[in-house]
């Protein structure tokens, strides 16, 4: 899965899996985890992490040294990612977050560029057009987490570069870029 993925040297040091108590050390530790998590998610196309996903995500547990992250620790990491724009909580209770190795503004720019290049502006599209159909030009959207894509659209709507067409009960029917 991650053949080319390079594990950091502290991956095998047990204290890496214990949330440090002293502030300076903890900041450094969280920083390392941020970089590590983003890099891993990018390499493995992971876009959604729940605090209970310790067992699902290989970097969150190390069986060799028998250490794993606690849900509290994972929440700390996701929270810190959210602060720098690389994650967004999907719920108030901070259980699940979408991971954006490209931040949402980056995604918005990327998307704008894409639709401009493909001359797809001003025509309505559905989510399926972007997420399920194979777009050979850029596989970046295919399989993208829907909630992340919606976040990007919402962001673009805020910028005035996207119009959302909502059906009854507020369900998104389609959208077009302007």
């Amino acid at each position: 899965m991650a053949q080319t993925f390079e594990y950091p040297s502290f991956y095998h040091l047990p204290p890496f899996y214990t949330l440090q108590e002293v502030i300076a050390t903890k900041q450094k530790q969280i920083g390392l985890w941020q970089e590590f998590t983003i890099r891993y998610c990018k390499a493995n196309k992971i876009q959604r992490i729940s605090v209970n996903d310790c067992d699902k995500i290989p970097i969150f547990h190390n069986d060799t040294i028998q250490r794993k992250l606690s849900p509290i620790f994972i929440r700390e990491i996701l929270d810190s990612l959210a602060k720098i724009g690389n994650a967004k909580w999907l719920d108030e209770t901070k259980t699940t977050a979408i991971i954006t190795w490209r931040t949402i503004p980056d995604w918005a720019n990327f998307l704008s560029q894409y639709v401009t290049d493909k001359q797809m502006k001003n025509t309505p599209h559905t989510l399926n057009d972007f997420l399920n159909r194979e777009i050979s030009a850029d596989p970046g959207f295919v399989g993208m987490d829907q909630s992340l894509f919606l976040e990007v659209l919402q962001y673009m709507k805020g910028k005035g570069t996207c119009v959302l067409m909502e059906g009854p009960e507020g369900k998104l029917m389609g959208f077009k870029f302007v």
Partner: protein
Amino acid sequence: MFGLSVPRFDPKTQALELEENERRVFTVDSVYISEDKKSYDKANNFKVILTSSRVVFVREDELNRSLSLYIDMIIDYLFKQKAFSKSYIQVTHTLVSGSNATLFIHQKSKGLNELSEKLKEEKLRRAKALAASQASTTIPDEPTKFEFKGGKSLSAQQAEDHLKSVVAGSFDDIDSLMQGARELLGLAQDYTRVLSRNLDTSQISQSEKEDYLVFANELGIDSAVTRESAGTDYEKELSREFATLMFPILERSGGTMTLVDAYATYNRARGINLISPDDLIKCTKLFPSLNISLRVSSLKSGVSVVHLLSHGEEQMKEKTLAYLRTKKETGFGYSILDVAAHLNISSVLAKQYLLSCEENNLICRDEVSDTTLFYPNFFLNKADLALLTS
């Protein structure tokens, strides 16, 4: 075998070193002692010296195998004079451990009879003396005086008299206790002397010697400094006494201990002349001015410790960190108990030093189910990261 002290006998002058208030009563040559009433080994040839408090068995050829048996430890003895075989005295006595033992004194020629008679006299005399001393310490046992009899109450004068006698009796108790303590101390000192003589012949290893001397030190302070004995120099004298006692103890126990532990150790050594915590704090403040190389300092957590000059908080933290950087068979990561054992300090202190190191970003932690292991802080120190991943 019998008493703790080995008697000191000079074969040239035939003089026996006597204890206080002890006098020599009678001497018999060439007796044999055994634990069997019928047989004995002729090699066990002793000279018996009876004194007012001991029966001393001297071996002139092997003085260090000489023994002394305190008369007070003899429970019973029996003189058997046999017409056709040798006579013997059967002595039943207590051992230091509290159990009883029997030994037999044999002799070919006469003399046992006289020894038996003299022993009887001395034992009787000791018993009388003991009874007399006990009688003097017994509290007058007449509480009935305080009861109301026939409606008559006790007069104030009588009550006061009774009180005085009770008070006097109480202090008699303490006197006899102190007497006992002095004897015990004498015994310990005797033992130290014996040991120091044996040391010259180097039969005892250096570590045993050190162990014993520290043990002897912990037995107590011979004449503790008191306000009465030291007067205005009380605190200075106390300071010196504290340093004298604690220095070897600290040197053995990692160079540092909590002030509370030191207070307990010191007061235990003082026996009954306890000092207050306040006195201790005052006397520890004098260390620098008296050029005593001990210091008391407070750790960040507020715990006060007393330590050798070379074992301050910074030094202890350095030692802790250096230890965490040593690799063991199973890799790195040490618990509080590991550090306490390595530095030979209490786990309370080891924890303090570890937390202090952590606070200074020198080390980090690894929490496993039931324990916390500490590692050098590789998050912030690249050299430690290289060390741990090498």
